[in-house]
Protein backbone atom coordinates (compact mmCIF):
# COMPACT_ATOMS: atom_id res chain seq x y z
CA UNK A 1 0.00 0.00 0.00
CA UNK A 2 2.92 2.38 0.62
CA UNK A 3 3.73 2.29 -3.11
CA UNK A 4 0.34 3.79 -3.94
CA UNK A 5 0.82 6.55 -1.37
CA UNK A 6 4.28 7.47 -2.69
CA UNK A 7 2.84 7.56 -6.20
CA UNK A 8 0.08 9.93 -5.02
CA UNK A 9 2.75 12.10 -3.40
CA UNK A 10 4.51 12.37 -6.76
CA UNK A 11 1.20 13.39 -8.35
CA UNK A 12 0.68 16.06 -5.67
CA UNK A 13 4.13 17.54 -6.34
CA UNK A 14 3.26 17.83 -10.03
CA UNK A 15 -0.12 19.40 -9.20
CA UNK A 16 1.57 21.93 -6.90
CA UNK A 17 4.04 22.82 -9.66
CA UNK A 18 1.30 23.37 -12.26
CA UNK A 19 -0.90 25.46 -9.99
CA UNK A 20 1.69 27.48 -8.09
CA UNK A 21 4.51 28.36 -10.51
CA UNK A 22 4.41 31.26 -12.94
CA UNK A 23 7.14 30.14 -15.33
CA UNK A 24 5.86 28.31 -18.43
CA UNK A 25 8.78 25.87 -18.44
CA UNK A 26 8.05 25.00 -14.80
CA UNK A 27 4.41 24.35 -15.72
CA UNK A 28 5.49 22.03 -18.54
CA UNK A 29 7.75 20.21 -16.08
CA UNK A 30 4.82 19.87 -13.67
CA UNK A 31 2.66 18.36 -16.39
CA UNK A 32 5.47 15.89 -17.11
CA UNK A 33 5.66 14.90 -13.44
CA UNK A 34 1.87 14.31 -13.35
CA UNK A 35 2.13 12.16 -16.46
CA UNK A 36 4.94 10.08 -14.94
CA UNK A 37 2.93 9.56 -11.75
CA UNK A 38 -0.15 8.36 -13.66
CA UNK A 39 1.88 5.98 -15.82
CA UNK A 40 3.58 4.57 -12.74
CA UNK A 41 0.21 4.15 -11.01
CA UNK A 42 -1.18 2.06 -13.88
CA UNK A 43 1.82 -0.25 -13.85
CA UNK A 44 1.66 -0.52 -10.04
CA UNK A 45 -1.97 -1.71 -10.26
CA UNK A 46 -0.98 -4.46 -12.68
CA UNK A 47 1.97 -5.74 -10.63
CA UNK A 48 1.84 -9.18 -9.09
CA UNK A 49 4.34 -10.32 -6.48
CA UNK A 50 6.72 -13.20 -7.29
CA UNK A 51 5.88 -13.13 -10.97
CA UNK A 52 7.61 -12.66 -14.29
CA UNK A 53 7.55 -10.29 -17.22
CA UNK A 54 4.79 -11.08 -19.77
CA UNK A 55 7.09 -12.74 -22.29
CA UNK A 56 6.66 -16.42 -23.09
CA UNK A 57 9.72 -18.61 -23.39
CA UNK A 58 10.06 -21.84 -25.33
CA UNK A 59 9.77 -25.01 -23.28
CA UNK A 60 8.83 -23.22 -20.08
CA UNK A 61 5.44 -23.11 -18.47
CA UNK A 62 4.85 -19.81 -16.75
CA UNK A 63 2.69 -19.84 -13.66
CA UNK A 64 2.55 -16.18 -12.69
CA UNK A 65 2.72 -13.19 -14.97
CA UNK A 66 2.21 -9.52 -14.29
CA UNK A 67 -0.87 -7.96 -15.89
CA UNK A 68 0.08 -7.12 -19.50
CA UNK A 69 -2.95 -4.91 -20.21
CA UNK A 70 -1.90 -1.76 -18.22
CA UNK A 71 1.57 -2.11 -19.70
CA UNK A 72 0.17 -2.00 -23.23
CA UNK A 73 -1.95 1.06 -22.41
CA UNK A 74 0.95 2.86 -20.70
CA UNK A 75 3.20 2.16 -23.68
CA UNK A 76 0.73 4.15 -25.79
CA UNK A 77 0.47 6.85 -23.14
CA UNK A 78 4.25 7.40 -22.89
CA UNK A 79 4.62 8.05 -26.62
CA UNK A 80 1.62 10.40 -26.67
CA UNK A 81 3.13 12.23 -23.68
CA UNK A 82 6.28 12.92 -25.70
CA UNK A 83 4.24 14.32 -28.59
CA UNK A 84 2.21 16.54 -26.26
CA UNK A 85 5.38 17.82 -24.55
CA UNK A 86 6.88 18.68 -27.94
CA UNK A 87 3.74 20.61 -28.91
CA UNK A 88 3.63 22.57 -25.63
CA UNK A 89 7.33 23.43 -25.87
CA UNK A 90 6.86 24.65 -29.45
CA UNK A 91 4.05 26.95 -28.30
CA UNK A 92 6.21 28.16 -25.37
CA UNK A 93 9.10 28.99 -27.72
CA UNK A 94 6.74 31.00 -29.94
CA UNK A 95 5.42 32.86 -26.88
CA UNK A 96 9.00 33.67 -25.90
CA UNK A 97 9.75 34.97 -29.40
CA UNK A 98 6.69 37.22 -29.32
CA UNK A 99 6.72 38.48 -25.73
CA UNK A 100 10.33 37.94 -24.63
CA UNK A 101 9.37 36.27 -21.38
CA UNK A 102 8.20 32.99 -19.88
CA UNK A 103 6.20 34.68 -17.12
CA UNK A 104 2.51 33.90 -17.55
CA UNK A 105 1.39 37.09 -15.81
CA UNK A 106 3.31 39.22 -18.32
CA UNK A 107 1.51 37.70 -21.31
CA UNK A 108 -1.49 40.00 -21.38
CA UNK A 109 -2.12 40.59 -25.06
CA UNK A 110 -5.13 38.27 -25.15
CA UNK A 111 -6.80 40.11 -22.27
CA UNK A 112 -7.78 42.98 -24.55
Amino acid at each position, binding site marked *: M*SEYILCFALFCIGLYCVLRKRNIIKIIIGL*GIIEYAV*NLFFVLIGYRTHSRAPI*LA*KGQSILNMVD*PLPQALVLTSIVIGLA*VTALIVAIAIRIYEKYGTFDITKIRRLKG
Partner: protein
Amino acid sequence: MELQILLLFMIFAAIVAVQIEDLLSSVIAVGALGLGLSLAFLILKAPDLAITQLVVEILCLIILIRATINKDLPVIRDGRWFFNTASTLLFIILFLIFAYFALQELPRFGQPIMRVAQNYINQGLEKTGATNIVAAIILDFRGYDTLGEATVLFTAVMGVLAVMRRVGRKKSSSMV
Protein backbone atom coordinates in the same frame (compact mmCIF):
# COMPACT_ATOMS: atom_id res chain seq x y z
CA MET B 1 11.79 -2.58 -0.65
CA GLU B 2 13.97 -1.33 -3.49
CA LEU B 3 10.84 0.01 -5.15
CA GLN B 4 10.11 2.28 -2.18
CA ILE B 5 13.69 3.58 -2.21
CA LEU B 6 13.44 4.30 -5.92
CA LEU B 7 10.10 6.06 -5.44
CA LEU B 8 11.60 8.21 -2.67
CA PHE B 9 14.47 9.10 -5.01
CA MET B 10 11.94 10.06 -7.68
CA ILE B 11 10.01 12.25 -5.22
CA PHE B 12 13.27 13.93 -4.20
CA ALA B 13 14.16 14.57 -7.86
CA ALA B 14 10.67 15.98 -8.46
CA ILE B 15 10.99 18.37 -5.49
CA VAL B 16 14.38 19.53 -6.78
CA ALA B 17 12.93 20.02 -10.27
CA VAL B 18 10.04 22.07 -8.93
CA GLN B 19 11.88 24.22 -6.41
CA ILE B 20 15.26 25.01 -8.00
CA GLU B 21 15.52 28.47 -9.55
CA ASP B 22 17.80 27.74 -12.51
CA LEU B 23 15.77 26.33 -15.39
CA LEU B 24 18.55 24.18 -16.89
CA SER B 25 19.16 22.47 -13.53
CA SER B 26 15.42 21.95 -13.23
CA VAL B 27 15.26 20.24 -16.63
CA ILE B 28 18.17 17.99 -15.70
CA ALA B 29 16.41 17.03 -12.46
CA VAL B 30 13.43 16.00 -14.61
CA GLY B 31 15.86 13.77 -16.52
CA ALA B 32 16.87 12.10 -13.25
CA LEU B 33 13.18 11.60 -12.44
CA GLY B 34 12.47 9.99 -15.81
CA LEU B 35 15.44 7.63 -15.61
CA GLY B 36 14.31 6.64 -12.11
CA LEU B 37 10.90 5.87 -13.57
CA SER B 38 12.58 3.71 -16.21
CA LEU B 39 14.32 1.72 -13.46
CA ALA B 40 11.01 1.43 -11.58
CA PHE B 41 9.39 -0.07 -14.69
CA LEU B 42 12.25 -2.57 -14.83
CA ILE B 43 11.64 -3.56 -11.19
CA LEU B 44 7.89 -3.83 -11.88
CA LYS B 45 8.59 -6.42 -14.62
CA ALA B 46 7.81 -4.20 -17.59
CA PRO B 47 10.91 -4.28 -19.83
CA ASP B 48 9.15 -2.84 -22.91
CA LEU B 49 8.06 0.18 -20.91
CA ALA B 50 11.56 0.65 -19.47
CA ILE B 51 13.11 0.79 -22.96
CA THR B 52 10.43 3.15 -24.28
CA GLN B 53 10.67 5.40 -21.23
CA LEU B 54 14.46 5.64 -21.63
CA VAL B 55 14.21 6.74 -25.27
CA VAL B 56 11.30 9.12 -24.64
CA GLU B 57 13.05 10.68 -21.64
CA ILE B 58 16.17 11.44 -23.65
CA LEU B 59 14.13 13.02 -26.47
CA CYS B 60 12.06 14.99 -23.94
CA LEU B 61 15.24 16.29 -22.29
CA ILE B 62 16.60 17.43 -25.66
CA ILE B 63 13.35 19.30 -26.43
CA LEU B 64 13.24 20.98 -23.01
CA ILE B 65 16.92 22.00 -23.18
CA ARG B 66 16.24 23.52 -26.61
CA ALA B 67 13.51 25.58 -24.97
CA THR B 68 15.62 26.84 -22.06
CA ILE B 69 19.14 27.29 -23.44
CA ASN B 70 20.46 30.61 -24.78
CA LYS B 71 17.71 32.65 -23.23
CA ASP B 72 18.47 35.33 -20.68
CA LEU B 73 15.75 34.66 -18.18
CA PRO B 74 15.12 36.76 -15.11
CA VAL B 75 14.22 34.72 -12.05
CA ILE B 76 10.44 34.77 -11.80
CA ARG B 77 9.19 35.29 -8.27
CA ASP B 78 5.80 33.99 -7.31
CA GLY B 79 3.31 36.77 -6.89
CA ARG B 80 -0.09 36.86 -5.19
CA TRP B 81 1.21 34.58 -2.48
CA PHE B 82 -1.94 34.05 -0.45
CA PHE B 83 -4.42 33.42 -3.29
CA ASN B 84 -2.11 31.04 -5.17
CA THR B 85 -1.20 29.02 -2.09
CA ALA B 86 -4.81 28.79 -0.95
CA SER B 87 -6.10 27.57 -4.32
CA THR B 88 -3.21 25.10 -4.64
CA LEU B 89 -3.86 23.68 -1.19
CA LEU B 90 -7.58 23.43 -1.97
CA PHE B 91 -6.97 21.39 -5.12
CA ILE B 92 -4.40 19.11 -3.45
CA ILE B 93 -6.73 18.43 -0.51
CA LEU B 94 -9.59 17.72 -2.95
CA PHE B 95 -7.36 15.26 -4.82
CA LEU B 96 -6.27 13.56 -1.59
CA ILE B 97 -9.89 13.10 -0.47
CA PHE B 98 -10.79 11.39 -3.74
CA ALA B 99 -7.57 9.35 -3.59
CA TYR B 100 -8.50 8.16 -0.09
CA PHE B 101 -11.86 6.85 -1.30
CA ALA B 102 -10.23 5.28 -4.38
CA LEU B 103 -7.67 3.50 -2.22
CA GLN B 104 -10.47 1.65 -0.40
CA GLU B 105 -11.69 0.17 -3.67
CA LEU B 106 -8.35 -0.74 -5.18
CA PRO B 107 -7.04 -4.30 -5.14
CA ARG B 108 -4.14 -4.83 -2.74
CA PHE B 109 -0.66 -4.20 -4.12
CA GLY B 110 0.67 -7.35 -5.74
CA GLN B 111 -2.70 -9.05 -6.29
CA PRO B 112 -4.24 -7.61 -9.46
CA ILE B 113 -7.68 -8.51 -10.81
CA MET B 114 -6.82 -10.12 -14.12
CA ARG B 115 -10.20 -10.90 -15.66
CA VAL B 116 -9.46 -9.84 -19.24
CA ALA B 117 -5.72 -10.16 -19.10
CA GLN B 118 -5.87 -13.83 -18.14
CA ASN B 119 -7.57 -14.53 -21.48
CA TYR B 120 -4.87 -12.62 -23.29
CA ILE B 121 -2.15 -14.58 -21.51
CA ASN B 122 -3.78 -17.97 -22.11
CA GLN B 123 -4.74 -17.46 -25.74
CA GLY B 124 -2.17 -14.90 -26.86
CA LEU B 125 0.29 -17.34 -28.33
CA GLU B 126 -2.07 -19.38 -30.49
CA LYS B 127 -4.21 -16.41 -31.55
CA THR B 128 -1.47 -13.99 -32.51
CA GLY B 129 1.75 -15.98 -32.61
CA ALA B 130 3.62 -13.38 -30.57
CA THR B 131 5.64 -14.50 -27.57
CA ASN B 132 5.63 -11.01 -26.10
CA ILE B 133 2.13 -10.56 -24.71
CA VAL B 134 2.41 -6.76 -24.52
CA ALA B 135 3.29 -6.59 -28.22
CA ALA B 136 0.41 -9.00 -28.96
CA ILE B 137 -2.03 -6.67 -27.15
CA ILE B 138 -0.94 -3.37 -28.67
CA LEU B 139 -0.58 -4.71 -32.20
CA ASP B 140 -3.38 -7.26 -32.37
CA PHE B 141 -6.01 -7.35 -29.62
CA ARG B 142 -6.13 -3.58 -29.28
CA GLY B 143 -4.84 -2.52 -32.67
CA TYR B 144 -7.32 0.34 -32.93
CA ASP B 145 -5.74 1.94 -29.86
CA THR B 146 -2.41 1.93 -31.64
CA LEU B 147 -4.04 3.41 -34.74
CA GLY B 148 -5.42 6.21 -32.58
CA GLU B 149 -2.00 6.70 -31.02
CA ALA B 150 -0.46 7.08 -34.48
CA THR B 151 -3.17 9.65 -35.33
CA VAL B 152 -2.43 11.66 -32.18
CA LEU B 153 1.29 11.53 -32.90
CA PHE B 154 0.78 12.70 -36.48
CA THR B 155 -1.52 15.52 -35.36
CA ALA B 156 1.01 16.67 -32.73
CA VAL B 157 3.81 16.71 -35.31
CA MET B 158 1.62 18.73 -37.66
CA GLY B 159 0.90 21.15 -34.80
CA VAL B 160 4.61 21.57 -34.03
CA LEU B 161 5.38 22.22 -37.71
CA ALA B 162 2.53 24.73 -38.00
CA VAL B 163 3.60 26.59 -34.87
CA MET B 164 7.33 26.65 -35.56
CA ARG B 165 7.46 27.25 -39.33
CA ARG B 166 9.38 30.23 -40.69
CA VAL B 167 7.99 30.49 -44.22
CA GLY B 168 4.78 32.47 -44.54
CA ARG B 169 5.12 34.20 -41.20
CA LYS B 170 4.76 37.97 -41.16
CA LYS B 171 7.70 40.23 -40.39
CA SER B 172 8.18 40.62 -36.65
CA SER B 173 8.00 44.43 -36.90
CA SER B 174 4.47 44.30 -38.29
CA MET B 175 3.41 41.77 -35.68
CA VAL B 176 4.28 44.02 -32.73
